């Protein structure tokens, strides 16, 4: 039997008859968890989130509890801010779009609870500019929440004040980087900040302690509080708890988004059982498993994975691409990452160099230009790849391309350096022969 979805966040999304107004949300038990949360000490909610082992769903997979733990309201005079990162722009990813457009109040409730837990009085939702309808939906939802005193002064008589505003971006992927987002929110060019010293938990928005969380992460907080950390931690796998919304696109028969417990579904099950397998009768060639910045995986590759056997001992198994469980640790173990959950599937008719060239143009466009390696290197890689896909590749280009990528990764201010370098490294590592062939087939 194919693996079943566990729709916790997507529970009501696409359900017939479910509308995005607050009345519908309330009818389905909405804001009950907020009422419960407001009666708890904020520190306890933070503790619950930590015990739940919830990891960020924006791409980095960083422990949410740990991120919240960096901020101690008793040790600062400055206001604490929380920002919902709704700047979903990682190619292949389209999950936050669903939540924003189809169940906005779930996000708001999760966000309000998160703000309460962290003593936040003023919070922002940074939504990408290309979601204008989403921004309007959120503003309307906020107005509805305010009207019912789920937001604003003295929420539900608890004495807690919170205001949330929507802030629209204007077409820059780098605003998804937390310090780039903060700079953009401050009204400046979104150049990410150097860390140290500008860790958002210490010197964030307006140089005050700030938490930046992804849309899906904040929704998960709601469910952690609702069911309790123990129950949440039982979902998925140890250290990879809860569910993930996986987005599949590319050469599958049924692209789309689905929510599964972390690690219970493998790549093959997702592609073949859930998404109808490769379309047009073609064969699988490559998968980008976690948004375009994740290193591509080749269909025939074998991976060594350490797994804990029933006897508690660690054994090393060799598995194929299709057997990789889709959780954070497994995907990291095979040399890629779970990232933002955007899975792009490519079949055997696809030219890997062309695919990489397409992505390199994305990165060259989106580089903010602040630091030398990424600014110069991202456009250089794009130019090399454009040349290679227009019949002018030279023998030395593949090695050059790889070396340029190697000179960017690990040398930049922010993770965009890795984001633009890893795809190049991944594609060349897995499909070297195709890249080199460009020079001979001119």
């Amino acid at each position, binding site marked *: 039997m194919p693996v079943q979805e566990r729709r916790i966040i997507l529970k009501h999304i696409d359900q017939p008859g479910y509308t995005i107004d607050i009345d519908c949300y309330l009818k389905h038990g909405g804001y009950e968890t907020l009422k419960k949360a407001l009666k708890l000490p904020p520190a306890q909610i933070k503790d619950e989130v930590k015990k739940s082992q919830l990891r960020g769903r924006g791409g980095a997979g960083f422990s949410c509890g740990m991120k919240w733990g960096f901020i101690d309201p008793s040790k600062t005079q400055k206001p604490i801010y929380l920002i919902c990162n709704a700047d979903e722009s990682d190619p*292949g990813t*389209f999950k936050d779009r669903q939540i924003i457009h189809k169940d906005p109040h779930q996000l708001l409730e999760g966000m309000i609870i998160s703000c309460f837990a962290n003593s936040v009085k003023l919070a922002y939702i940074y939504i990408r500019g290309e979601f204008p309808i989403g921004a309007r939906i959120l503003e309307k939802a906020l107005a509805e929440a305010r009207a019912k005193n789920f937001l604003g002064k003295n929420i539900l008589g608890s004495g807690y004040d919170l205001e949330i505003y929507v802030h629209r971006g*204007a077409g*820059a992927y780098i605003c998804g980087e937390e310090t780039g987002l903060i700079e953009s929110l401050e*009204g*400046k060019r979104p150049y990410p900040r150097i860390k140290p010293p500008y860790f958002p938990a210490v010197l964030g928005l307006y140089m005050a302690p700030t938490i930046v969380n992804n849309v899906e992460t904040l929704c998960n907080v709601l469910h952690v509080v609702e069911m309790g950390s123990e129950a949440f931690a039982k979902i998925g796998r140890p250290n990879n708890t809860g569910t993930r919304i996986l987005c599949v696109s590319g050469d599958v028969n049924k692209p789309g988004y689905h929510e599964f417990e972390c690690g219970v579904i493998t790549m093959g099950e997702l592609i073949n059982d859930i998404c109808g397998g490769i379309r047009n009768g073609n064969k699988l060639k490559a998968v980008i498993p976690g948004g375009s910045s994740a290193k591509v995986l080749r269909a025939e590759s074998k991976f060594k994975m350490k797994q804990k056997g029933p006897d508690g001992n660690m054994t090393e198994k060799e598995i194929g691409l299709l057997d990789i469980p889709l959780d954070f640790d497994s995907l990291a173990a095979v040399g890629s990452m779970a990232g933002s959950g955007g899975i*792009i599937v490519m079949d055997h008719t696809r030219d890997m160099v062309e695919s990489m060239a397409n992505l390199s143009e994305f990165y060259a466009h989106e580089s903010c230009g602040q630091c030398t390696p990424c600014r110069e290197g991202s456009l250089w890689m794009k130019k090399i790849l454009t040349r290679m896909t227009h019949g002018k590749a030279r023998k030395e280009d593949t090695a050059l391309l790889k070396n340029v990528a190697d000179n960017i990764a690990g040398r930049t201010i922010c993770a965009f350096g890795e984001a633009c370098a890893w795809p190049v490294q991944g594609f060349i590592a897995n499909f070297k022969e195709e890249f080199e062939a460009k020079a001979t087939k001119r």
Partner: protein
Amino acid sequence: MSAQVDPEFEKQVDEVISHYPASKRSASLPLLHLWQEKYGYVSEEGIHWIAEKLGLQPVNILELVTFYPMFRQKPIGRHHIRVCRTLSCSLNGAYDVFEHFKKITGATGDEHGPITSPDGKFTVEFVECLASCGTAPVVMLGDELHEKVTIKSAEQIIQSCH
């Protein structure tokens, strides 16, 4: 103030500024959106007006207008068509859709930016991932998202514009 704006607009602007009690500068992006929505593009006047309103230098606003591709300093056609060009959409024929839009609208020019049809009716441009890869290729007509766009539905999109 160099430019004059109507009181209704100013009221909107002031309301937005109130969302950022810690720093007026944060209202730069929202004000740019408001200005562009009202006037169609951000003119030199707009840059000066917003800078003055927020106690900033004109260069501070110019920095933003030129960084974010959604802001334009020149007017565009009546109907704005944005075609996603990133991987999943590209794999599903986005470039063919773009070519077709060019053909039926007659828009030409430097495709690194927006190109407008000679009659000023349509502006077509490539944009990066619009976060709807599952329904690729996607196109935005104004604020609306059109999914699984084909050559045929592209024509329908054009026809729906008056």
